[in-house]
């Protein structure tokens, strides 16, 4: 029997943990600048980070077999929370997204990013792969239900990401290319119908995404200001705490969804490449885990979670750089926000559990 390190005992994957801690550190540094050098904001975020790390390590202790047994219930719990938030939720910025739990407020839609892949992985790993038509049909139903509930809040960005998360699990499970293509085509074709159900502000965002200069002081303002911030950063950036765009109040939402623009302005292209390298390191470590584990459930869940993580990064960066519409998706581990942080870390806890318990079984 090999000698166990502390990390091994704690079921922690050292390289994954290293990447996550580096990202959190970068997040705090940028947040200090974006939040107007307010130490209280940074302190609150670091407390959230510590809580998130504790949650991650706690979840890593649960064997994957146990997680698999709980999966469906976790999925149903997520749905129940989404219904609750629609009925009784706390309204912030015109949308019902929050549940007030007394001590803290909680965003059930974020939790669904974890619960949906778990439910789907449980469903698909139970039988042969690639899944049969009936199972694909049930999977689609399991995806659409939470997506519609989240879109009703309305929170288009998270709805999109939850949909992507489900889509990725199906993709990895080996649904045929032809069927994937057909599904994409159906979604494209139904776009005009979906347009009808969108809120005014959501439609305006899509129109201004297509042409931001139409409304420079209204809906296009976010995109234009963020592009100026990024572009003026140049190759090496203006330096930490020196971003004029972000510090003179021109850049909106600079601690949350648009924090990437602050990063780009102050650290330049070189800084961004470094940040991307850390992100890619974490993603590839995650994918390696997905490929190397034996259990099908673990494979599907690990790859689904890590691809969702990537989707968040891509959608946020695309939105801030003006390549995608402004849909309100935070930059993982960097943007301020407790629920998103805890859910992300919980997902990495699941990854670590899948990875570390495997060794024990094989011995």
């Amino acid at each position, binding site marked *: 029997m090999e000698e166990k390190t502390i990390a091994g005992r704690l079921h922690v994957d050292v390289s994954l943990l290293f990447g996550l801690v580096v990202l959190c550190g970068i997040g705090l540094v940028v947040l200090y600048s974006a939040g107007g050098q307010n130490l209280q904001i940074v302190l609150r975020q670091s407390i959230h980070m510590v809580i998130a790390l504790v949650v991650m390590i706690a979840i890593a202790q649960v064997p994957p077999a146990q997680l698999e047994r709980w999966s469906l219930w976790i999925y149903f719990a997520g749905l129940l929370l989404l219904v609750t938030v629609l009925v009784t939720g706390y309204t912030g910025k015109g949308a019902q997204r929050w549940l007030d739990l007394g001590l803290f407020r909680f965003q059930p839609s974020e939790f669904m990013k974890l619960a949906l892949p778990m439910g789907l992985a449980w469903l698909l790993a139970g*039988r042969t792969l690639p899944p049969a038509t009936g199972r694909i049909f049930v999977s689609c139903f399991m995806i659409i239900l939470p997506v519609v509930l989240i879109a009703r809040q309305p929170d288009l960005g998270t709805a999109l990401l939850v949909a992507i998360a489900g889509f990725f699990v199906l993709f990895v499970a080996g649904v045929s290319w032809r069927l994937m293509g057909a599904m994409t085509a159906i979604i494209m074709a139904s776009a005009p119908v979906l347009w009808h159900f969108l809120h005014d502000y959501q439609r305006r965002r899509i129109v201004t995404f297509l042409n931001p200069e139409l409304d420079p002081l209204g809906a296009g303002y976010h995109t234009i200001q963020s592009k100026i911030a*990024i572009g003026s950063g140049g190759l090496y950036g203006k330096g930490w705490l020196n971003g004029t765009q972000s510090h003179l109040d021109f850049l909106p939402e600079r601690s949350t969804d648009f924090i990437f623009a602050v990063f780009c302005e102050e650290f330049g292209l070189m800084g961004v490449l470094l940040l*991307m390298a850390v992100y890619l390191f974490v993603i590839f470590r995650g994918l390696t885990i997905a490929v190397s584990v034996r259990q*099908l459930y673990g494979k599907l869940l690990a790859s689904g979670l890590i691809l969702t993580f990537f989707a968040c990064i891509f959608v946020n960066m695309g939105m801030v750089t003006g390549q995608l519409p402004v849909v309100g998706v935070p930059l993982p581990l960097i943007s301020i926000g407790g629920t998103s942080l805890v859910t992300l870390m919980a997902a990495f806890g699941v990854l670590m559990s899948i990875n570390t318990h495997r060794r024990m079984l094989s011995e």
Partner: protein
Amino acid sequence: MPIDFFFKDIVEESRLVRRRVICSTLLILLLMLLVIARLVHLQVIDHEHFITLSQNNRVKILPIPPIRGLIYSRDGVLLADNQPAFSLEIIPEQADNLDELIRRLSRIVSVQDEDIARFRRLLNEKRRFESVPLRFNLSEYEVARFAVDRHLFPGVEVIARPYRRYPLRADTSHVVGYVGRIDENDMERLDKSNYAGTIHVGKFGAERAYEKLLHGRVGHQQVEVNAQGRIIRVLERTPPEPGKNIHLTLDVSLQKVAVEALQDKRGAIIAIDPNNGEVLALVSSPGYDPNPFVNGIDAGTYRALLASSDTPLINRVLQGKYPPGSTIKPFLGVAALAYGVRGSDETIWCPGWYSLKGGEHRYRDWKKHGHGYMNLTHAIMESCDVYYYSLAHELGIKRIHEALSDFGFGRKTGIDISGELPGLVPSSEWKRKVYNQPWFPGETVIAGIGQGSILVTPIQLVTATASLANHGKVVSPHLAHEARNPITGEVTVLENNNFRRMALYEPAYWKIVTGAMVDVVHSDRGTARRSGLGTPYRIAGKTGTAQLFGIAQDEEYKAGDVPEELQDHALFIAYAPADTPKIAVAIIVENGGSGSKTAAPIARRLFDHYLLNNRTNAG
């Protein structure tokens, strides 16, 4: 063990997943390259373009707060003023070491620990390039000392801002109230855009009641700022609309007489014009100096004000609930006549005590051996308790409640400054609801002399007194006279001259009761006869002495035996001149002893001052 009826080829499935994961990896790399390409485009190729845009991106819109309207009295005395005061402010961005800086500054101007604590608090709320005040109200000496050494303190400025001053300090504190820094509670009820840039908001008194008019409308300027956020030039300006000046009905010279009369005493004086409800004087003693509240009073002073047994922060005129004592008698007299319980000439024998049929308890008169035969006029004039014990018993609590409510007791008068309490006119329903007990006949008996659970506020007393003077017309007391636009001079009338007529009463009844009230002051058997000597006008009044301390059946009340805070309250209500009323007053001196000795002489001073062309009474 049941056999799996489907076949799982684990190796094949793993390969499938692996293929898909590899596809995903390629997709990830592709999309990341797309983002990088976009960033290269923005940050390298178009960099110059965006640098120019960011340089030009400097137009900001700043609010210009309006100047707050002033508050004047009816005789033109300034009650609330804006005076420039100097504050010492620091721009954190330009200071290297704040602790060191503050230490060096404290050698030039006085900096207390509270100042530093407040500075730290404000520092967290503001941005690095916004100036944060360290000290308010610098003296001219301190400003001069700083000016000499200014070059040693980059990033520190002396800034002149208008601050609210209340020149009459405690004398008008309960009328004018004060403004204070806007806090979170205020933010909820205020229009945020209109208050952008405003620091203060009315918290109490007229400052709060007429906040909307006093504040005005915010203006805006479009400015060009440099990269540090400092204003370089103004591009466009929409001037603010200054707040309106408010003119109150208060007569400051009368107010000062009232303040002086209550000097070193606890009590309340309210004087109104019975014809229209204009408040002429409103004093709650002791008052407090509102000036320290403007920029945040220090905790020690505030705690002392709150803890003081003299409760200077309570506005006794609106919030003081007192047993009315014998001042209730004229009102019940009108009621007894109106309900036909007593004829005007009907007499009652007063032996010095009263008891209910079959009851043991003796309700005693203030005059030990009795008043003899009494009719209503005598009973008011000499304040005979026995007459009123039986009157109240015959009226019954239901009709007493009805009549007193019609005079406006037990509900708010609706005066235009906030904080008023409704007082209490008891009824058997009230007692059942609150105490779940039946009403006892004895309670009705003592209600006849204004004792028991009945509680009135001075503002209710004076409004009811005005109703006596008006023979049943109930006015709405108010402080606001008019608002004037300081630029155009345009006048908006604010007077609330509404009134209502009381329900039951016929003109003949008022004459009997008000005639008796004149006898209280001007007949040689009246309880307030000493205060009516030598007046060129006639006063109608009623004394009252409210007991706070229950004494046993066979004991006698002696002021010296009772601690001060349990001694009787002295009350007096009056109006003058009796035939053409111009002023009505209600006076309460807490623990002041008897109404005739303590409260009535104050009314005489007020009337002499107001009616005899501000000539003070020698006596």
